[in-house]
């Protein structure tokens, strides 16, 4: 099984490698920057994004009460994903010609509503969790 994956993988890498060289040599001025972007992804992730995730995670575990940690953490993750997906819709210096029916919704408002919904749900879940915890503390189950 391992060998099957390895052989298929190496074959795909070989084929992709040949295609990639062709792609680069077809026009290095335009296509060469792909090399830089291939490296930039992991570097930006490891040097910026991951430490930020760690920092936010640490902040949540230190500053947020235990009952609220999961809802706050989940809402933070969902918000980060929504904002990331919204970037090319909100910041459009390279947007091409206007196409009616495409990319013409009111994204700032829709993003704000989605974020609001995320945090509303998080607050509701957090309230229910702390309420349940308080009740459990008041009426400890016996047996």
């Amino acid at each position, binding site marked *: 099984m391992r060998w099957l*994956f390895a052989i298929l993988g190496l074959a795909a890498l070989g084929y992709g490698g040949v295609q990639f060289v062709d792609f680069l040599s077809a026009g290095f001025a335009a296509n060469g*920057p*792909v090399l830089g972007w291939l490296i930039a992804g992991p570097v930006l992730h490891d040097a910026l994004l991951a430490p930020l995730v760690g920092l936010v995670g640490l902040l949540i575990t230190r500053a947020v009460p235990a009952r609220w940690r999961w809802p706050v953490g989940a809402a933070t993750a969902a918000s980060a*994903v929504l904002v990331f*997906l919204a970037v090319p819709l909100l910041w459009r210096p390279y947007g091409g*010609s206007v196409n009616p029916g495409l*990319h013409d919704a009111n994204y700032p408002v829709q993003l704000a509503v989605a974020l609001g919904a995320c945090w509303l749900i998080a607050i509701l879940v957090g309230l229910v969790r702390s309420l349940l915890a308080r009740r459990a503390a008041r009426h400890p189950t016996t047996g």
Partner: protein
Amino acid sequence: MKRISLIPRQSRFRAAAHDERVAAKVGVWLGIAFLVCFVTGMLSYAIQYPPSWFYWPSRPVNLYRVTQGLHVLAGIAAIPLLAAKLWSVFPKLFARPMVRSLPHAIERGSILLLSGSVIFELVTGLFNVAQNYPWRFFFPTAHRVVGWLAVGAILVHIAIKLPIVRRALSKEARAASKATNDQPSQDRRRFLRTTWLATGVAVAATAGSTVPLLRNISPLAWRSTEAPQGVPVNRTAKAANVIGAATAEDWRLVVQGSGRAHQFGLADLAALPQRTAELPIACVEGWSQSASWTGVSIPELLHAVGAAPGSELRVISMEPRGRYARSTLPGSHTDDPLSLLALRVNGERLSLDHGYPCRIIAPNRPGVLQTKWVQRLVVQ
């Protein structure tokens, strides 16, 4: 004196998210998402640039639409999955010594290629579906070529890690983790739950581009509900520079069969038997929209000029230049009565932006090949 360093040691990462079971579980789903992306992406490429052995049927009418919706949504799902996976294995970046042996060096190199190519695919794809593409390199070629590197690196990675994946997902490991409810187990489950939740949010936020039920719900769908005549426009008549030609009084469609060329005015086309079909425009960029199209069935039109349905048909637009000014309708489609030279959409005359005076709309085809502002049809 205690040495203070900005670079943490691997052992400093103690959170449950860094457990191998987390990396394995998220990795399996990430692998599935990428496999879907790869297969559907290559399929779309084969349909647009068919090799001689390739055959693509005209039915079911929505098949292409489903494959490309899956392509883009699997890519969207892969964004939070990849973030979770990279966070899960992040401590390994700080393992010392950096390189232990030659196999270890190859493994680390393959991971750099893996993360580089996968991040590249997701980011370029996201900016391309938003039609806000900042790079000079041509998206379809770069995305396809790096896709091969990504899938190769993923397969090699699976080959290297398979024993760990097997151990982490084995029945015993699952039974053991179910039986324990200590803090690390709870944290691990929460991290996984958060990952699935964020993935679901990402898909739900964008799926309205292609899933009709979510059309009015997805806040970040690339298509809006403001489309003229109920169908989004991906290239306007103005951008294609066809307004003059498309509205000219003396416009005639030229159909070149085996013999002489036949000419049809708009009234001639309208006088031919009309057929109405519910067909989707399905864009390679992941959005799709079904509509009711009315026009002349292509097999009928071929009969009218004395050509046989099932012949390949070259479609030439009035658009003077551009990648999609020409297309070829293969025999499998010219034989299908649902393939139309459409004059109307959703009960109205085609607007200029939708291809007036007439456009091709055929079942189970990429939107970019549904050529608008048709000037000439040549039977091959």
